[in-house]
C-alpha cells in the first residue's frame, strides 16, 4: 500500500453536452495532461479539447507508396533481370499486367501497417496495466457515462483545486485514481523466462512442422504419387494399350501440321508451273536460307554452290548450280529436287521443314545472282 501514487482525478458526466462543456472548460483552464473517456466518439470533442488533427493519413500514404514501389520494383526485377521469360509473346516488362498486384500490395500495406502504426505508436498498445483499468470510472465510461480525468503529472495539478473545478462543472463521482509503481513495471517485463520459453516452444514447433511438411511428408505416400503414378514414358512399353507398345503411331489418315504429303511426285518438268515460293526474300528469310544451305547442301554443292564438294572422291560430284539450266528453273523445280532428290542426291524432305526449303531457294538465287552479276545489279 505504501507505494501507491496518485494518477489522476476523475469525474463522470451523464450527457454528451455536459462532457463537451467540461472538456472545453478544462482546456481553457490551461490543463494539458488530461483525457476524456467516452463510450463512443462524441462529435466536436476534438475541437473542445483543442486537439490537432490526426496525422495517421501520412503513415497511410507512406506505407501505400512503399507497397506500390516495392511491388513494381520486385516485378520489374523478376521479369527483366532475374528470370526474363517470354509469356504470351508480350514484352518482358508488360506493365499493364503489373497493375493488379501493385494495387493490392499498396492497399495491403497502407491499411494493415497504418493500423499497426496507430496501435503501437499512438496508443502504445497492447497495454493492460494502465492505472485507469479496472476502476469504477473505466467501467462507467465503458458503458454509458462520459468521463474526464486530469493527471497528477499536469504542471497545474493540485488535488483540491481539480476536485473543486470538477464540482463547479457539475461532475459526479469525483474520485482519485491511484497506481502501484511496482505492479505496473512488473507486468511489462519482456525477458520474463516464461515468455521466452513460450516463444522458444512456438519457434521449435513452427520450424519443425515446416521442415516435416516440405522435406518428409512430400516423400511419403500418398503425397509421392508423382513418382509412382502410372504414366507413359518414351520408348517404354505400356500395359494401357493392347499391343503393349507405349509409343503410338498417328491414327490412319491424320496429317501433322506442316507435313502435307507432296503431291507432285516424279513431275519435275511440270511442277514449276504449280509451285510458287510462298516466302519473300527478306533479310530474315535469307539468313535462315543461308544457315540451312550451309548445314544441309554445302557439303556436296560447296559453300557457293559451285559443285566444289568437300567430299571429293567419296561421293559423285554434283554439278554446279550456276548452270543456265538451274538458273532458268522455276523455284518449284529446285523445291522438287530438294523434296524428292534427284538420281544420287537423296530427298531432304525429312530433314528440312517446308518453309526452310523455300528459304534455301531464296538464298540459292542470291548466290546465283552474285556469281553471275549483270551491269544493272551494281546500280
Amino acid at each position, binding site marked *: 500500500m505504501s507505494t501507491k501514487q496518485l494518477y489522476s482525478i476523475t469525474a463522470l458526466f451523464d450527457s454528451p453536452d455536459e462532457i463537451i462543456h467540461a472538456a472545453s472548460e478544462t482546456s481553457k483552464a490551461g490543463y494539458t495532461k488530461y483525457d476524456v*473517456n*467516452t463510450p463512443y466518439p462524441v*462529435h466536436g470533442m476534438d475541437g473542445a479539447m483543442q486537439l490537432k488533427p490526426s496525422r495517421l493519413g501520412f503513415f497511410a500514404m507512406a506505407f501505400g507508396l512503399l507497397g506500390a514501389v516495392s511491388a513494381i520494383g520486385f516485378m520489374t526485377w523478376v*521479369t527483366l533481370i532475374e*528470370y526474363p521469360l517470354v509469356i504470351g509473346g508480350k514484352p518482358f516488362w508488360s506493365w499493364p499486367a*503489373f497493375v493488379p498486384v501493385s*494495387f493490392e500490395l499498396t492497399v495491403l500495406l497502407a491499411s494493415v501497417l497504418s*493500423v499497426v502504426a496507430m496501435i503501437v505508436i499512438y496508443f502504445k498498445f497492447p497495454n493492460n496495466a494502465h492505472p485507469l483499468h479496472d476502476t469504477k470510472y473505466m467501467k462507467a465510461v465503458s458503458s454509458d457515462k462520459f468521463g474526464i480525468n486530469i493527471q497528477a503529472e499536469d504542471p497545474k495539478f493540485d488535488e483540491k483545486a481539480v476536485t473543486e473545478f470538477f464540482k463547479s462543472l457539475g461532475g459526479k463521482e469525483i474520485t482519485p485514481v491511484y497506481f502501484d509503481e511496482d505492479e505496473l513495471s512488473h507486468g511489462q517485463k519482456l525477458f520474463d523466462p516464461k515468455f521466452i520459453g513460450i516463444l522458444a516452444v512456438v519457434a521449435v514447433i513452427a520450424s519443425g512442422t515446416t521442415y516435416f511438411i516440405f522435406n518428409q511428408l512430400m516423400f511419403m505416400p500418398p503425397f509421392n504419387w508423382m513418382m509412382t503414378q502410372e504414366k507413359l514414358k518414351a520408348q517404354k512399353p505400356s500395359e494401357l494399350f493392347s499391343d503393349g507398345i507405349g509409343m503410338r503411331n498417328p491414327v490412319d489418315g491424320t496429317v501433322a501440321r506442316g507435313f502435307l504429303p507432296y503431291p507432285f511426285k516424279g513431275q519435275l518438268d511440270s511442277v514449276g508451273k504449280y509451285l510458287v515460293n510462298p516466302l519473300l526474300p527478306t533479310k530474315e528469310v535469307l539468313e535462315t536460307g543461308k544457315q540451312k544451305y550451309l548445314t544441309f547442301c554445302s557439303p556436296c554443292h560447296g559453300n557457293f554452290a559451285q559443285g566444289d564438294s568437300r567430299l571429293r572422291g567419296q561421293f559423285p560430284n554434283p554439278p554446279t548450280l550456276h548452270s543456265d539450266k538451274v538458273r532458268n528453273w522455276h523455284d518449284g523445280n529446285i523445291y522438287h529436287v530438294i523434296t524428292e532428290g534427284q538420281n544420287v542426291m537423296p530427298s531432304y524432305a525429312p530433314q528440312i521443314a517446308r518453309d526452310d526449303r523455300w528459304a534455301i531457294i531464296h538464298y540459292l538465287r542470291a548466290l546465283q545472282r552474285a556469281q553471275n552479276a549483270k551491269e544493272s545489279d551494281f546500280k
Partner: protein
Amino acid sequence: MSTTVIDYTKELPVVEGRPTASQIEVVVTAPLDQFPPRKWWYAFAVTLSMLSIGGFCIGMSLYKGLGLWGVNQPVGWGFDIVNFVFWVGIGHAGTLISAILFLLRQRWRTGIARFAEAMTIFAVMCAGLFPLMHTGRQWLPMYLTPYPNQHGLWVNFTSPLLWDVFAVSTYFTVSLVFWYLGLIPDLATLRDRTTSKIKKTIYSIFSLGWRHSNRHWQHYERAYLILAGFATPLVLSVHTIVSFDFAVSVIPGWHTTIFPPYFVAGAVFSGFAMVQNVLIFVRQYFNLKHIITLDHLEKMNKVMVLTGSMVGYAYAMEFFIAWYSGSQFETFVFLNRALGPYSWAYWTMVSCNVIFPQLFWIKKIRRSIPAMFLIGITVNIGMWFERFVIVVTSLSRDFLPSSWGHYTPTLYDAGLFLGSFGLFFTLILIFVRVLPVVSISEVKAVVEGAQPSHH
C-alpha cells in the same frame, strides 16, 4: 391532405425507440453471457454435420485426387470455381456495407455492419477453400506465392490467376483488420462488463487495453476512415480481378469487357441477399428488432433491386454484343446458353436474378419478412447458377465441335459445396455466441440524443 407529405430531408431514426446506452449493451451482449439454448444446439448440429460431410470429401479428394470430381476435358473448371466465385461474391456485401456506405455517410449501416463484415470474412474463407482444393496438389500452396525457391523460378505476374491470389488474400487480411478494428472498443466494453475471470483475460488480451480515451478515438476514427477508403476500391478490385480469370482468356462467352462491372454488381447483389437472409434470423432470435429494423431490411432490398437490374442489363448486353460482334463463336455460345443442354440453368438464373427481385419495387413486398426472405433465397440460387452458366456452358462447347463435352458433377462436388455452407454457418453460429453481433459503440453513437445537441 397535408398528412401525406413526407419530409425526405429528415433522416428516419436509425435505431427505433430511443434505447439507452446500457440497454443497447444488455441486448447485444445477452447471447454472450448465456449458455446457448436448445435451438442453437440443433442448428449447430446441422451445420456441423454439413461441415463434416465437406471434411470427408476434402479428405477423400486429398487422398484419392481430383478424379473424384466431375471435372475433366473440356470442362476443367466445375463446381470448384463456381463455388469460389459464388462465395467471394457473398463476401462483397459486407465490405460494401462497412466501407462504401461508411464513406457515403449512410448511418443506417451501423446496425448491420459488424455482422456483414463477419460474413465477409467467413465467406472469403469458404471461397479460399475451393481454389486451394482445385490446385490438386493442396500440400504445395507455397507455389502460389513468389518465394525464393530451388527452381530459381518466380510466379507468373502476368497471369490473372496470380492476381487472384493477391487480391483474395489482401481482401481477407484487410477485411479481418477492419473487422478487428471495429471490435476493439466493444471488446473493451465486454472486458469491463464481464464477471468471469477467464473471459476477462481473453477480452483484455484482444481489446489491447483500450480505454475509450478521446485522444485515441481521434486516431481511431481516422484509421477507420482510411481503412474504409482503401477497402472501397479494394472490394471493387477483388471481383474485377476474379472476373479477369475469365475475361482475360479467349474462350467465347468469357472474353468480354463487361465482365468486371457485371461481376461486381452480381457480387453485391448476392451478398446483400445472403446478409438479408441471415439477419432476418438474427434479429428474430436475439431480440434485435429495434436495432436491425425493418427499415434496414428494406434498404437492403432496394440495393438488391438496383444491383439485380444491373445484372439483368448485363445479361441483355451480353446477347446484344454477341450479335453485334458478328463473331460466330460468340453468337453460338449465347444461343447455346439459352437453348442448349444447360438452358435449364440459364433460365433458372434469369428468372431468379432478373424477374423475381423486380417484385421489390412494391413496397409491401419490400417490407414483408416472408416475401423478402423467399426472394433473397431465390437470388442466391440464381447467382450461384449465374456462375455455373458462365463457367460450364462456355467450357463445354467452345470452338471445335469435336472437342465439346458435357459436365456432370459428382457427389463429391455436391459434398464439398454442402461442406462450404456447413463451414459458413458453423462459423456464424459460433460468432453470434462469442462476439457482439452489432457494433455496440457505433450503435450507441447513433441513437437519438447520443450526440451533443448543438451539433
